[in-house]
């Protein structure tokens, strides 16, 4: 399954477990905030897909870039985001990552290399490819990972930018999280042929991997990242995974497109956190008690962050026309010709 555990690896493995558990705890709290009507709007849960974000982001450094999706909390957390600023953003508070202006679907965390989640399906594929162009032009060795779902493979933009990435040998990895459903429609109803073959048509090396197996994802990504740094990119990875919740938190009655049995089966047999936890105990890297203690600590940390965010301030009304333009304090007077 993976490299033989050593002390260094053990630390890596425990961090992967912690990161996955943090994402799950974040989503459990976000879902509760929605159900208790404490969160404005809707959100899209990443629960079930944790091994994808963590396996990939653990192969990246802080200056490597990612672009994320409407189902993006996992990517943000895996790339280094913290609970407090995440929950503040979800609740539209001033201390959120985007000062409350982006919300669940637009969290950007530039300091950790996250160029933003995107609410247009497939909308960030150009941005990710452009970030890789910058890395190539500046000789920085940074790699960009573009996260997107199976639904986004229907967007024409993907094929335009993969063409250019291949022509220009850009250090970008296209990571297709195939969770089996394009919103409320089965993927086999919206995707003809093979998804990886589409990348291969551009001469892009494509892989398929079990997205529930964090070590498999991480091992593959480590290899692709180091090769991309050497100019061997781009690459394409299709990760087979599953979302436990509906398309969004309000998608409760979903038996018309997928069965409860199917959901139960994935949760029981293919949960990325449970299975990795079992492997850690089997290998003697952590005891069941160690993991339970970690889970409890993370739950407390998440709860404290939720309480903090609920009590935090909304942005002042004066910020409504701030940040429209860089270098312009307030857009409204500026648009009528006042000095910036």
């Amino acid at each position, binding site marked *: 399954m993976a490299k033989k555990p050593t002390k260094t690896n053990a630390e890596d493995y425990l961090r992967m477990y912690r990161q996955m558990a943090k994402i799950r705890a974040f989503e459990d709290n976000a879902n509760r905030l929605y159900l208790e009507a404490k969160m404005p709007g809707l959100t899209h849960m990443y629960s079930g897909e944790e091994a994808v974000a963590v396996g990939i982001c653990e192969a990246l450094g802080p200056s490597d870039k990612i672009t994320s999706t409407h189902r993006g909390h996992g990517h943000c957390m895996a790339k280094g985001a913290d609970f407090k600023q995440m929950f503040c953003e979800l609740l539209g508070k001033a201390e959120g990552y985007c000062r409350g202006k*982006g919300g669940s679907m637009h969290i*950007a965390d530039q300091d950790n290399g996250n160029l933003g989640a995107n609410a247009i399906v497939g909308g960030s594929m*150009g941005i990710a490819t452009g*970030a890789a162009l910058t890395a190539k032009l500046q000789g920085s060795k940074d790699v960009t990972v573009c996260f997107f779902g199976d639904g986004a493979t229907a967007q024409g933009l993907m094929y335009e930018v993969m063409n*250019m990435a291949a022509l220009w040998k850009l250090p970008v990895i296209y990571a297709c999280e195939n969770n089996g459903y394009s919103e409320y429609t089965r993927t086999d109803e919206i995707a003809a042929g093979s998804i990886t073959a589409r990348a291969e048509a551009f001469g892009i090396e494509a892989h398929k991997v079990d997205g529930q197996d964090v070590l498999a994802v991480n091992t593959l990504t480590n290899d692709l990242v180091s090769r991309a740094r050497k100019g061997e990119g781009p690459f394409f990875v299709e990760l087979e995974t599953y979302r436990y919740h509906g398309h969004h938190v309000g998608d409760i009655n979903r038996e018309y497109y997928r069965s409860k049995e199917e959901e139960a089966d994935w949760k029981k047999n293919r949960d990325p956190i449970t299975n990795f936890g079992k492997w850690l105990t089997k290998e003697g890297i952590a005891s069941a008690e160690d993991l339970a203690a970690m889970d409890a600590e993370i739950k407390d940390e998440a709860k404290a962050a939720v309480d903090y965010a609920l009590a935090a301030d909304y942005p002042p009304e004066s910020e409504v026309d701030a*940040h429209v333009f860089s270098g312009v304090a307030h857009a409204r007077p500026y648009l*009528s010709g006042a000095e910036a």
Partner: protein
Amino acid sequence: MSRTITLSKAINEVMFEEMHRDPTVILMGEDVAEAGHPFKFFAGLVEEFGTERVIDTPIAEPGYMGIAVGAAMTGMRPVVDLMFGDFLYLVMDQLCNQAAKAHYMSGGKLTVPLVVNTNLGATRRSAAQHSQSIHALVAHIPGVKVVLPSNAHDAKGLMKTAIRDDNPVVIFNDKMMYNDKAEVPDGELLIPFGQANVVREGRDITLVGTSSMVGVCEKAAEMLEGDGISAEVIDPRTIVPLDEATIVDSVKKTSRAIVVDEGHQSFGVTAEIASRIADRAFYYLDAPVQRMGAMDVPIPFSPALEDLTVPTPEGVADRARAMIRGDI
């Protein structure tokens, strides 16, 4: 010292000077490298700066616009060429949903210093998909600045300002004006956004013209002079931001205004400027503000029809006379 150069040459000089000044400036688009662009204003750039910075793209406008947005977010200053303004429809998601909103949605964290170099204007006998003036469409979207140069001098100064701006800026040059000449000073020329140019001073009526319509208004003003009517011509130069004060002050002085723009007349630039004049100078007006834009039809191919669709100096002068007579 100054020289007389074409608008194409002005664009060419901007790219040479800015790419020498700032190594993060790159140029992307269809046939911008060895071909130097079908309108030739990028000639010589690839020889000077190489294919890494002068990048020929496939014919995939949304794709390279998206790549430019990502490059801009991460430290480059891309100038993206859209061969015809009509192709803006192809890049709407990347320009309006991504570039325009990234700074705001990220609470000011992400910036997108991106320039789109494109054009507007009919009468080139290019039919409905290569003749549109759709700058109002972009101006409608918060987060994008919109620049409408009317001559080589302003094209140079405004494009330099655009490249140094930290926001998405779309520049529309009139495609019929690429070979028109103007005096342009040697060396640095930066024209700030949001500062209208009073092209010609007058007392009796204000003609606000944008881009291709500045020349139309100037010709109309010359015709009116023969009738003893003194027309003031104002060129806003940028519509986002818009220098309201210069326009409003002029209308307060003249008491009459016609707004002329080559975009379709309905729901466009003429409506916006006329409404701002009405908001701030209503009690100074002797006549309703008049609007003259492109006819609300797709631009036809046949010269006999196409010429009917855009404002002309004669049309503007006739409208001005009617206002002065009190017929409007």
